[in-house]
């Protein structure tokens, strides 16, 4: 399923809404999650899962081709943990 198919499904269930409003609604939800993570916040959606940000410390890496040392800065990376309900559903429980 891709974004446009998701929008289509929501639009079919809500015939009183304009397609372009459904697009705005779906886009707002994803945008809000990214914005929260960009601030360093967590987004916890019970039953579905939680989006959070993990800090990776600065480290000395190595160029695998040349073996040369390179300084890698600390960085923040997005992380998703599946919720219990969804995990159980995937396993047919």
């Amino acid at each position, binding site marked *: *399923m*891709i*974004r446009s198919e*998701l929008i289509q*499904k*929501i639009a079919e*269930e*809500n015939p009183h809404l304009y397609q372009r*409003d459904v697009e*705005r*609604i*779906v886009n*707002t*939800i*994803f*945008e*809000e*999650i*990214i*914005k*929260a*993570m*960009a*601030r*360093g*916040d*967590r*987004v*916890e*959606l*019970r*039953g*579905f*899962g939680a989006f959070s*940000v993990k800090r990776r410390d600065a480290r000395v890496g190595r160029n695998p081709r040349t073996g040369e040392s390179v300084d890698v800065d600390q*960085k*923040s*990376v*997005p992380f*998703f943990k*599946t919720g219990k309900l*969804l*995990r159980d*559903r*995937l*396993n047919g429980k």
Partner: protein
Amino acid sequence: MSEKTLTRMDLSEAVFREVGLSRNESAQLVESVLQHISDALASGETVKISSFGTFSVRDKAARIGRNPKTGEEVPIHPRRVLSFRPSHLMKDRVASGDQG
């Protein structure tokens, strides 16, 4: 970093502000988006949201695990797990703190 936790309520509040719907209907829409994604994943489908990320279901083989406290061996049954791969856009915005 502020380290706040957002919930469904914050997402529906954002939808409420964006489109002129009631708070109640905004909350229902947030719920149905999550529901559709979950349904697709439960049926084994991959869900690809451009510029957000990709949720995919992976099969894990059975293996022998160990209770770390007692050292006892326990069989771990084959299972399906969800993996989320963030888009480049998400990674970049999270790394740079770009709140758009």
